[in-house]
């Protein structure tokens, strides 16, 4: 079911990856990303720039913004082959897949000219300033304040669960620009530099023992008056549009990553005898079957017309994959046996241990299970609020 030009493109991606993910970058192969102890952020930046020089950043962006405007199937192929080759977690992910499309839709030409090239070249990295201590699932309860003073915005407040802030240069922040406003009214989306005296970043230690996310404190932090994305007061609309860009082609890259994890699990099970346990055999086969079904679901999502309303398969996608992976993490631990809690030098086993713990977060971030079920019940099934 592929055509010849996609096959040629696949070969091109494979060849590029095997030619470039080597030498100093060997150390990044198969790394999960920030928070993986083996991940060296400085090296990761050089890798992002290498990717950029190869033309692999912004492959789906329109040409006017410096992208390659590749068709959807080829974007999918790139993500799949990137993961299959052991490409590391992408430091530039938030800028490339979340902020950039939002800039293209809502940004001024000056903002686009100023920020898109840095994302495209892998020289500027972005963090997402949404959640706060009292605005998690209830995001509209944002309390961070922004006020315009002269030619600057001044920002005060606190964001939390901010992935990769300590490795980023900029943050997009949802803040309350109209004092006394309620809920989703009176918000602004600001683009704020992270490296300034008014910003303090404190890493949060996670259940893995490492830090992938942070608390970010704003204490009179400054950004230029023109760096609001969309109109002040309409920050909610921009913030929600940005989340809409999250469901995209990278799903199949993620899928390819899960398939690699499944291969690791099978390798360990065959090695340590877990493959002979009749209960584990059933669970492994079920996990493999469900993983295949997730791929079908992702393809079904991609088969939808871009302008069609959100489809049934889109509504269930996040709940389905995140719960699969959470269960898979526990299966991985059961396959490892006692070795789940006793780290050793075995790279494959180590990957499974990482999955076991990291996958606890899948059902919490980007809309927790409970929020997903609300959305499915109320929006997809039309049950009353």
């Amino acid at each position, binding site marked *: *079911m592929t055509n010849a030009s996609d096959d040629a493109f696949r070969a091109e991606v494979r060849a590029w990856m095997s030619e470039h993910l080597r030498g100093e970058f060997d150390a990044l192969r198969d790394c999960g990303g920030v928070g993986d102890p083996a991940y060296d952020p400085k090296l990761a930046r050089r890798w992002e720039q290498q990717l950029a020089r190869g033309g692999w950043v912004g492959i789906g962006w329109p040409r006017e913004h410096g992208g390659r405007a590749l068709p959807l199937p080829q974007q999918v192929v790139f993500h799949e082959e990137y993961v299959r080759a052991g490409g590391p977690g992408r430091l530039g992910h938030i800028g490339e897949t979340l902020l950039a499309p939002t800039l293209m839709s809502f940004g001024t030409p000056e903002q686009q000219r100023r920020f898109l090239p840095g994302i495209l070249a892998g020289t500027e990295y972005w963090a997402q300033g949404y959640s706060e201590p009292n605005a998690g699932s209830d995001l509209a309860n944002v309390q961070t304040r922004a006020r315009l003073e002269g030619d600057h915005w001044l920002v005060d407040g606190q964001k939390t669960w901010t992935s990769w802030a300590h490795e980023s240069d900029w943050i997009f922040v949802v803040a309350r620009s109209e004092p006394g406003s309620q809920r989703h009214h009176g918000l602004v989306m600001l683009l704020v530099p992270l490296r300034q005296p008014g910003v303090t970043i404190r890493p949060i230690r996670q259940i893995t023992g490492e830090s992938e996310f942070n608390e970010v404190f704003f204490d009179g932090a400054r950004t230029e008056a023109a760096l609001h994305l969309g109109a002040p007061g309409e920050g909610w609309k921009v913030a929600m549009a940005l989340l809409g860009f999250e469901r995209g082609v990278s799903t199949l890259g993620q899928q390819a990553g899960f398939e690699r994890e499944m291969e690791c699990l*099978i390798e360990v*099970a*065959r090695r340590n005898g877990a*493959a002979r346990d009749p209960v584990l*055999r*059933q669970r*492994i*086969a*079920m996990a*493999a*079957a*469900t993983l*295949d*079904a*997730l*791929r*079908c*679901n992702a*393809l*079904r999502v*991609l*088969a939808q017309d871009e302008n069609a309303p959100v489809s*049934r*398969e889109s*509504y*269930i996608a996040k*709940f*389905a994959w995140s719960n699969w992976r959470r269960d898979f993490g526990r299966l991985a631990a059961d396959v490892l046996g006692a070795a789940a809690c006793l780290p050793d030098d075995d790279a494959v086993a180590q990957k499974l241990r990482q999955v076991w713990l990291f996958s606890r977060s899948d059902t919490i971030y980007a809309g927790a299970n*409970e929020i*997903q*079920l*609300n959305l*499915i*019940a*109320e929006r*997809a*099934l*039309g*049950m*009353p*609020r």
Partner: protein
Amino acid sequence: MDLRLTEEQRQIADSVAELLANASDSARMRRAAFELGGFDPELWQQVAELGACAIQVPDAHGGLGLGATELVLVAEAFGRRLACVPWFESAVLAAATIRAVGDESASARWLPALASGEQICTLDLGLLERAPLVAQHRGAGWSLDGMLPAVPAAMAAHWLLLPVQDGGDRRLLAVALDAPGVTRRPRDNHDATRPVAAVTLQGVKVADAECLASGAAAGCALATARELAAVVLASEQVGVAQQCLDLTVAYLGQRVQFGKPLATFQALKHRCAQMMVAVELARSAVLGAAREFDGRPAGLRRLRLATMARSLADDAAQTCTQEAIQLHGGVGFTWEYDPHLYFKRAQAARCWLGTPGEWRERLAVALLDEAAT
């Protein structure tokens, strides 16, 4: 792999769904299940007139020459309405078996009549354990003796495809169910929408021309048909699960307790949402499997696809039928409300063509035991 459906595919699915929504609504389905022995001849005629029996039959034999994708789209409607017709047995399983045999004269003899619905053909699935059949070749044909305790659609069918052991050789025979020596007796069945009969064979004669395949070819044809049919059966299970979700959401919207509709309670909304996750993931699995079957995948891939479709759909059906009973409360346990019919159908279907556990074990062998590929 492109999962977009064509306009023609949507039309086929819609036309069958529309017919069954009326002609096999709850009242008519119950009448067929409990008063007509689980077979509604009038509905069968309508289904056949719509071309639903001709989907996978090649043009040359009077069919539509379509594939697995069209079969699963239509199957979902049959599951959803528990239509009391042997569509799955005859138009899916038997037609796929005859197609897989690939014998031109057998195809010419049976497929046109199956495509038009004029004749109904079923297959012994070996649902219950039985003593081996005795098949002896005498003169120009076989003589069969034995008892088949549970043959689907045997009362309505004209032909029975029967795999037999003839000495050291395996054969696939077509037995005329009105032949001398054949006795059929309907069995009690909790799933009244898919009737099963005991068939006794006493010195039944089967002519040489009614042997469809022998030896490895017979086993191969049966396996091929079984994998395709498993995906189609999975789609029926998706229909079963979907209907239970819809019935439940509708009921929770009407039923008022504590002064408001039950549908406003978050605990219950979340249960329905989880049903929907199971239904949609299973539907994606079925559509993906069918689309890939249309591209004629290799053996291991077929096993993997069929296991995916059956595992997801059987579990979705079991979960959603159980949840429908629970969330309907007391009336969910009554004969009057429909959830129990779906619950029983879902359980019966789990055992057709291998249980989900058996499919998964076969997949486990391929993943874990065989040499790494």
